């Protein structure tokens, strides 16, 4: 079963198993994972669903769209050129079956 593990800055973690493919941001909001806001509803407009993808999964990620590239310039926590992504733009359960991400300190 596809799954997403969210690591919080304080060290706790939550793993969510998915019944069907879903983006990282939406899964976090629907399962009470703190630290991911998604203010625009998953439209790559607000940069409040920033996550750091863990090393093991970096080479399996989809390319960033131009929208995502632009919004990543706006994130509230430090931007990591390799690991920073928007949670609304990464869907788990299609090409990627599993992922682990670090939730940043702040989103706004």
């Amino acid at each position, binding site marked *: 079963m596809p799954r997403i593990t969210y690591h919080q800055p304080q060290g706790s973690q939550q793993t969510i198993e998915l019944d069907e493919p879903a983006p990282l941001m939406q899964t976090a909001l629907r399962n009470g994972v*703190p630290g991911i806001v998604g203010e625009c*509803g*998953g439209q790559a407009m607000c940069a409040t669903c920033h996550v750091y993808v863990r090393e093991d999964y970096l080479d399996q990620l989809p390319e960033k769209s131009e929208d995502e590239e632009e919004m990543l310039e706006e994130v509230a926590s430090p931007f990591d050129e390799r690991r920073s992504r928007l949670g609304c733009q990464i869907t788990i359960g299609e090409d990627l079956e599993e992922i682990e991400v670090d939730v940043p300190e702040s989103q706004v």
Partner: protein
Amino acid sequence: MTQPLQPHEHVVIIGTGQAGVQMVDSLRQNGFTGPITVVGDEPHTPYQRPPLSKELAGSSSIVPLPLRPEGFFDQAETQALLGVEVTDLDPQAKELKLSDGGRLSYNRLVLATGARNRDLPIEGADLQGVHGLRTLDDAENLHTALSEAWRVVIVGAGFIGLEVAACANKLGKEVTVLEFADRPMARALTSSASHYVAAAHTETGINLKLGEGIASLQGQHGKVTTAVGSSGEQYPADLVLIGVGVVPNTELAENAGLKISNGIAVDTQLCTSDPHIYAVGDCTTFPNHFTGGPTRLESVQNATDQARYLGALLVQGNDDDAGYRELPWFWSNQGGVRIQIAGISAPGDEAVLRGDPETGKFSVLCFRDGALAAVESINAPKDHMAARKLLVGDTSSLSREELSDPETDLRKLAKSIR
């Protein structure tokens, strides 16, 4: 002068949309420890509205995206009264009457009552198969109806109308859009951007009828079958979506004697004509730094930014506060057309193209009194993000030649004037 909140003060927020929920969040984030109550007339846990018109998939049921993770109100130690309407506001007694018979006293009240769909007073508007779209309930009804409909007629080529038109078209429906004005999104876009949008939708097979209002809706056995245009032409319809704008929910404030001016009138610090009552979001008319006059905006950006501003202001008080002055921005996804707007254009602005519409990727720069005032970007997110930076700075030194040259790096330019 806004007095900082004391820990014993009870803050009541009316509304559980983006503005109301952000208000709770911002009060707590700024360190307010006193009691908060939020009252919302919708029974649902607060949810996100933008996807409701942009991601109508047409098959399985809608799973709304929550505005905050479950348990948010508990964690924020906030009493949430959902499915409860505020029926009366007494500013003298600082008391609210609720639809469940209850009463609530407040020290400070925040109105985040939002807006509702504008009714269309035409024959047949109450027929089965005629829909509006604003709430989750609306979206669920539309969603179910869309799966059984074949011919979809949309009244109004604004944000909602065109977003739904694009979704329905993608689902293979036969889509007709009736627009009274001579171009789509006329209130939000300059004519260059508007004409591009019209052409793009027409190209995907949407029947966009401009200069065509709606005269009536006809039906059989109580169900809509035909939309009759102002020209007299008849458009067969299994489903009609009315998307002719919204009206702010001001009645409660109006009955309480607060000043109303299109929306609930507030000053630059979002305070109404009563010193203990504030208003944020779609319901609010505020002195807008960017338009130079009283303005009411309907957007996620305005709702959340106003709530953030007011949350900080109420907790910290203000000594040298300049008032709310965040740059307005908007977006819309309509099939392959992504529209992003920074700032607010006005009739009379000079519109200058940056890039070539033929490429499907360009921006319209709007100049007012010689300075950049707004930027509309079509499938050009780089321009949009740079514009959001440019427009909060002093753009008077930037020439239109420089700005409109696609070779100019707008982001760098924004840094140079900061």
